[in-house]
Structures are given as structure tokens and as C-alpha cells.
């Protein structure tokens, strides 16, 4: 049967030597759904993202990205994913527009300067920074260019790895708006984070990952901020 999910992980496990990084992880994302994968450092969030991107091969289980098998055909899967790493490292010698053009070209899209400027503005980067080299950019500015790069790829799945880490409140809020806008356009978003406030702000569903296991999964709307924090701490303590 053909999967209708934007992302579908089934019983995925990954170990490094004797250390189990991800254990029997199963989750699905529908188109337009924003899923927050919560967990402390070392919980397996980045390993999960690396497996979805095909940078790592799972020991067991299957990963489908819009019907493309990320295990057997990682390139096809990656073509359907826009990815924003925790720290967006741009080419410091290139301007924001040039960086966007470069990564868009890699993604198979030739974009003109006007389109690049539009995408950068949509991602929240101030206009006067568009023609500046990225070497002097703050983390928030780099993150915004990263968002523009992700948008330029026009993928149906957006992977965000700790996207608000190190961002100020304003930049984090800009990012929330971008995520909401993407969701409204039917783009599924998987966000690995430990920013509980942001999760409550933008996610439709959340899962708590602890020591490689998905220990809880909820609708974000069904739980308040205080309860979420208590639940998170309880699950980690268990």
C-alpha cells in the first residue's frame, strides 16, 4: 500500500558500537503537520535526522520520505527534504544572495537575484544584509539564510535540527512564523528541539525521545505549557 505520509519511520534502530542511539522508533508525519521531537542532548534526535537524511544507515527499520526509501535510496529521499541544521554554516566569502543561489543550485533550482531577495525577506533577513558577505552574520542571520535555503528547495518535508538554539526571542519568533507558513502550504515539519516554549507555539504533535526511545507522544493542543514541562521532566527522570 502506498504511504500517504510525508515521513514514516517504522521500527528504526541505530547503534554505535555497543551504544544504542535510537531504539525501535516509529513515527509518521502527515503533510502540513508540525511534529516536535523533544529530548535532551544525546537522546537520539540528531541521529534520527541523520538517518532520515541518509547520512547514517539504520541498523533496522524503514524510513520513507514521501514514498522514497531513505535507506535504500537516500538521494531520492534527500531530494524531497529541506534541511536546516542546528548551526547553519554558510560560505563566509559569499553574500546572503550568493549563498542562497549556491545552495538552491545544488537543490536543482536556478534562482535570480529578485527571487533570492524575496526568499531572504520571507525568512526574515533584513534587506541591507542581502548583499553582505556572510562572514559577519550573527547566528540568527545565518539561520534565516538557512531557512531561505530550505524554502528555495520547495521540498515537502522540512527537517529542523535544534532550529532555535542560540537565537534571540525575535529571531525565534520569526522562525515560528516561517514554520507556520510552511505548514499552511502543506509542508510537513519535523523539528528536533528541547525548546518547550517553541514546541507549544508551533507544533501539532510532539514526541519525547529519551535514551533513544520514544517514551511519549501527544497532541500539542491537548497539553498546557506547565503540564508539558512536568511531563517532559517526568519522562526524562523515569
Amino acid at each position: 500500500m502506498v504511504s500517504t505520509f510525508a515521513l514514516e519511520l517504522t521500527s528504526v534502530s541505530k547503534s554505535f558500537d555497543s551504544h544504542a542511539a535510537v531504539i525501535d522508533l516509529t513515527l509518521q508525519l502527515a503533510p502540513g503537520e508540525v511534529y516536535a521531537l523533544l529530548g535532551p542532548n544525546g537522546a537520539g534526535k540528531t541521529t534520527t535526522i541523520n538517518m532520515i537524511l541518509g547520512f547514517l544507515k539504520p541498523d533496522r527499520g524503514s524510513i520513507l520520505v514521501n514514498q522514497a526509501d531513505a535507506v535504500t535510496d537516500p538521494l531520492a529521499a534527500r531530494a524531497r527534504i529541506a534541511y536546516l541544521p542546528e548551526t547553519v554554516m554558510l560560505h563566509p566569502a559569499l553574500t546572503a544572495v550568493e549563498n542562497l543561489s549556491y545552495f538552491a543550485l545544488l537543490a536543482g533550482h536556478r534562482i535570480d537575484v529578485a527571487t533570492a531577495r524575496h526568499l531572504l525577506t520571507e525568512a526574515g533577513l533584513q534587506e541591507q544584509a542581502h548583499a553582505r558577505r556572510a562572514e559577519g552574520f550573527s547566528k540568527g542571520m545565518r539561520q534565516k539564510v538557512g531557512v531561505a535555503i530550505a524554502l528555495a528547495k520547495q521540498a515537502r518535508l522540512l527537517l529542523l535540527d535544534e532550529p532555535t538554539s542560540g537565537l534571540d526571542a525575535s529571531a525565534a519568533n520569526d522562525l515560528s512564523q516561517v514554520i507556520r507558513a510552511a505548514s499552511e502550504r502543506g509542508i510537513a515539519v519535523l523539528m528536533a528541539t528541547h525548546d518547550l516554549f517553541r514546541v507549544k507555539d508551533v507544533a501539532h504533535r510532539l514526541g519525547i525521545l529519551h535514551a533513544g526511545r520514544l517514551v511519549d507522544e501527544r497532541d500539542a493542543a491537548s497539553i498546557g505549557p506547565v503540564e508539558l514541562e512536568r511531563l517532559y521532566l517526568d519522562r526524562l527522570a523515569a
Partner: protein
Amino acid sequence: MTGSLILLELAILHRDRRAWWSLLALAVLVLLAFVAIASEAARVDHDKRQVAAAERARWVGQGEKDPHSAAHYSIFAFKPSPALGALDPAAGPFVGQTVYLEAHHQNDMLYRPQQNASLLQRIGFASPAALIAGFGPLIVFLLAFTLVAQDRERGTMRLALGAALRPRAIVIAKALAVWFAASGLLVAPVAILSLGWLAMGGRLDGDILLRTLCWCAVMVAYLALLSAIGAAASLRMRNARLALTALFGLWILFSLALPRIASGFVDSTWPLPSSQSVRQQMTEEAPAFWSDEDNVRHRAMLLERYGVSRIEDVPNPRMAELDLVERHSHEVFDHVLGGFYAKVAAQDRMFAVLGFLSPTIAAQAASASVAGSDFSHHRHFIDDAEQYRRDLVNRMNADGMAHRAHGTERHTNDERLWSQVPEFDYQAPPLGRLSWTALPAFAALLAWLGLAAIVLVLASRRMRP
């Protein structure tokens, strides 16, 4: 798409001060080296032409005398600088530029440019080819490190891999950008300058144009394989520091260690006899003064050649005997010097074969061959000058033998005969005629190019952030 990517990669290189200025510095050195060698060669060639004209006037104006004495009066032959000698002088600085052509002797060539060379030229690092072959790898590896290893270290490669539809396109664009930058600054300007220089000097013809294109192809192929190796190594090493160490090690191995080891190996495995022993062998087998027994033997041979029983019946016995010993010396020179030159060629061929160990060796041997400045081209001049000498001496002796002269009688001649001897006008061989010695180097260069492409493709298949 790939073209636009390469342009952006070139922009990154251009804006990276360390990489770009290093490349620019080497490019300027290459151009300065060319101008220094080309202007010196032009000055020396001008002097050679003037002296050659004076030599001709001296030859024609030597006055009335015995033709064999004229053969001893002799003439200097000058070797013009190879057209591409300023790109790659190769053996040029170490071999002579002129040879004294006289009866009975095949003389060594005189006046090695190395005797007047600057310190930089004497240590062998002052020609465009030597600079590109020796320092090209260092600069190309630095460029590859800047574009690939630093991208990985910074984390930019992770973002690129997440975005790329075909990850291989990332590294191929980077390798091509390094190749274009290196070729565009190290090879193209000096080749264009060389063509312009030759055109202004009236030396540019189809063969020289073809040689220049082939020289560019050799250097561009060399830089291409280095770009691929540099990108692949930067991609496979665990971190940037290891990549830099590995690339620096490869440069030392390819350009400094292996050429010296190869040269030492060839010298010790196929040693050359000393020039003194070669000269001594020639003197023993073709002496300037013959013993009484030899003279008796020569006279018997002359009687047989002329079909007479008395030496008085030979029209010009002195000249006939001189002709006899002259022709004997030709056989000796062919045998002794020919053997020596064959050993030098064997050494060159083995050095070219060792190009399979290091692309720098392959590039050096191939470059010298297409530039027409390797030993096989020098040998072509030696043979040409020697043939001219033999023709001159034979013509003088023939004139003497055609006229009766006995005892203290001497047949003499004058400008009418001297001017019949054509001027020495050396024509370098066309491309390809003398390339067989360097053929293994061309094969090695192609093998390295293929290997580098395979290594790059394999490395790009296993790309990790």
C-alpha cells in the same frame, strides 16, 4: 547548473585571501620566469646570429689555401634556443650552445647557459614548467583544501549535502573550480605570452603553435589530476588538519622526494661513463697522430682503393690518406658517442617510466619533450651539426683528392670553393618525431589522470558531512 556552481566556487576562492594570493604569487613568478628566460634567450640568439654571420664571413674570407687546412680552419655552429625553451628549458641550461666543427674531431658543445644563470635558475626553480611542476601541487592542494576540507570543518558541507540532489555535483564543481583557477592563472597567461613573444619574433608557425597547445595540455592535465587528488583527499580525511597534513605530505612525495629518488635510482642503475673516459676512448680509436704501422696499413688500403701498385699513382696521396682517417673517425664517433648518447636516452626513458610513481615526474618529462628542450632534441642538434661537419670536411677532402699533388706539392683553393659550402642552418624537428623517449611519461600522465578521476568519483560516492 554546474557552470553556475563553478562560478560561485571560483568567487569563494577569489575572496579567500590566503588561497588566491598564493595562486597569484605563483602565477606572477611563472610569468617573471618566462620573461627572464625569454629575454635572455632572445639576447643570446641575437648574439649567436651576429657571431654566426661573422663566422661565415671568416670562413669565406679565409683566403687561398689547401682545402684540408680549410677544414681545420673550421667554423662554429650555434644552436638556436628552442622556441618553447622559455616555457621549459629542461636540459637546455646544462648543455652547450655552440660547437666547433673541425676536421678529425667531434668536439663537445661549449658555453652552457647554466654558467651565466642566476642563483634561482641554478637551483632549477626558475622556469615556468619547473615552477608549475614543483609548486603547482602545493597551490592546487591549498585551493582544494580551502574549498573542500574547510567546508567540511566549518559545517558548510553538511548544509550542502542536505540541499544537494546529486552530492557528487558539490565536489566535482569544487574540483573543477580549483582546476580552472589553477589552469587559468598558471598556464593560460604564460602560454598566451609565449605565443605573442614568438609571433613578435617571427618564430610562430604551425608546429610551434601545436607544441604550445600540447605543452598547455600536459600542464592542464597535470593540474586536473592534482585538483581531483586534492579534492578527494580533502574529502576522505577525518578533519581539516589531517587533510592539510596529507596534502602537504603528497606534495613533498610527488614533487620533492620521488623525482630525486627516481633520478638517483636511474643514475645508479643505468650509470653513464664519464665524459673523460668517452673522450679517451675516441682518442684511442681515432688518434690525431698515427703510428708508422698504421701509416703503412693506410697506404695499402689506398693502393687497393685506387687499384694501383705505387703510391705515386694516387693523384693526391696525402689528401686521400687524410680522407681515409677522417672516414674512420666517423665510424668511431658513431660507435663511441652513439653508445654514450643511447645510454643518456635510456636514462631519460627510464625516468619517464618512473612517471608512473609520481605525476610530477610524468609532467616534467612530457613538458620537456613537447617543448623540444629535452636531451633527444639536443641530440638532434648534435647529429645535425656533426653531419654538417662531415659534409664540410668530406667536400674539402674531395676537392683535394680530385687534384694531383705529390711530395711537398699542395693543391689550393679559395673563396670559390669555401662559398659553395652552405651556411649551417639548424631546423628543429617537428613535434612527435623525437617524442618516443617521453612516451612513457605521456602514458603515465594519462594513467594518473584516470586514477585521479576514479579516486574523486569514489570519494564523492561516500560523501559524509
